[in-house]
């Protein structure tokens, strides 16, 4: 089963742990409705839709409201350190959380004590905390964009805001940035770099480049990275290899975007609606033969 840890952009949203579903176009947990927009809600919607297509159980989530003060994130961190040990998740995805190295390390201790450590996926603020703590290698998948990849490649930067200028954040530098991130041990076992082209990489270098369908507008749409991480997470939790999951997720996300006929003004919910169709088509047509590591 997939677990997802994140925040909801609403200060009044309480700490909640439980299974989450979708009703229409809203998320539903413990009788509460959550609108689907960019951030953790977009990741959740994409993961639920993907899981539904694969007959997977509803994800188990740890959520709290946080609008950037970090109070909700700290509630989630505290709860998780006390309860993650009882989880039967085979994959855990960490998402929009206030980066905090101390809490990150406490959670890592709790995960280390689990009888079978789940596969770990990180994106957004929690990926920043993982890198800053020097424990990126404990993760199975990070999903950075090119700016975040430059941050992973900069061994001194504690946040993308401080990536040094000589580390160029350009798409055509992706192979160098990936190599540098692995050189300084600041990358997870696999990287799925999202951008004009998506790159699947590991410490050996780029394994796959996914560049079809291509639409520049996707870069401007808030939440397309969240959906990518959500799709990959659900595929991983279904038992598919991490490398194959990342590869298929990139294809599905691009195809869902293509079907939404996006412009830079498109909202992510319009892309999420297309995920079932994109999954069906991708799984029918794609032979996955990348990884042999798991």
């Amino acid at each position, binding site marked *: 089963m997939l677990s997802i840890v994140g*925040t909801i*952009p*609403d200060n009044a949203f309480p700490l909640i742990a439980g299974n989450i579903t979708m009703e229409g176009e809203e998320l539903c947990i413990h009788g509460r409705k959550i609108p689907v*927009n*960019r*951030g*953790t*809600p977009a990741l959740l919607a994409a993961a639920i839709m993907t899981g539904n297509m694969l007959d997977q159980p509803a994800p188990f989530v740890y959520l709290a409201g*946080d*609008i*950037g*003060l*970090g109070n*909700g*994130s700290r509630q989630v961190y505290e709860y998780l350190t006390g309860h993650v040990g009882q989880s039967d998740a085979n994959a855990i995805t960490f998402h*929009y*959380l*206030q*980066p*905090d*190295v*101390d809490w*990150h390390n406490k959670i890592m201790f709790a995960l280390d004590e689990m009888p079978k450590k789940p596969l770990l996926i990180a*994106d*957004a*603020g*929690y*990926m*920043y*905390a993982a890198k*800053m703590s020097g424990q990126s290698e404990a993760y199975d998948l990070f999903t950075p*964009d090119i*700016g*975040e990849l430059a*941050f992973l490649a900069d061994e*001194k*930067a*504690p*946040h*993308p*805001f*401080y*990536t040094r*200028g000589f580390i160029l*954040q350009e798409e055509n530098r992706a192979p160098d940035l990936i190599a540098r991130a692995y050189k300084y041990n600041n990358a997870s076992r696999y990287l799925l770099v999202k951008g004009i082209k998506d790159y699947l990489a590991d410490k050996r270098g780029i394994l796959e480049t996914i560049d079809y369908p291509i639409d*520049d*507008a996707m*870069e*401007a*749409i*808030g*939440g*397309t*990275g969240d959906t990518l991480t959500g799709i990959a997470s659900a595929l991983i939790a279904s038992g598919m290899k991490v490398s194959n999951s990342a590869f298929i997720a990139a294809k599905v996300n691009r195809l869902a975007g293509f079907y939404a006929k996006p*412009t*830079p*003004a*498109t*909202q992510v919910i319009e892309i999420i609606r297309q995920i079932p169709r994109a999954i069906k088509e991708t799984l029918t047509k794609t032979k996955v033969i990348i990884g042999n590591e798991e």
Partner: protein
Amino acid sequence: MSFLGFLKPKKEKRPPVSGQDRGILVFENTSEVIRTESLLKAEGWKIRVMGPPPEIRSGCDLVIEFPLIEKLRILRTLNKAKIQPKEIVPVINPLLQPVDLFQIKDFGRYLMVRAANMKLTVEKDTRTIVNVSGGGCPDVPYLAKQMVGKTLSESPVPRDIGHTLCGYALQLAFEETTRICCL
């Protein structure tokens, strides 16, 4: 690096930040840094928003670098405004410099401005914010919710409702977008 620097009238000249005689003001969260920056810049202090040294870094931080010799006067200014720094420490090693480059992408009808890891997209004719993308701190989805669908002049300003480095980066993108759209 300033939110308000070019908007504020010039006041009495204060001593510049120089050499090793610098200290940093450390705060609980980035919104307090932003508030302090606005206040001290408005009072004419030569301060800079920088990245914290590794020994006091917690995750998503900014600090304010100031001339150490002016510590008492600066503290008096902060006290009057009921702002209490968490810590005041001298600068020993070079501090991290925030990203200050912008990348502009023209989509024809739309324009996207990227500052660090944050991207803001507007419809050129109406100056309506149509998307906010990038970023990883929890105020980003909140900021997007508050800003998307509003024009640059109607929208809340990220420095007023954001709390993190991503919020700070979005402010820079917002200022640059406003500047370009006003040319």
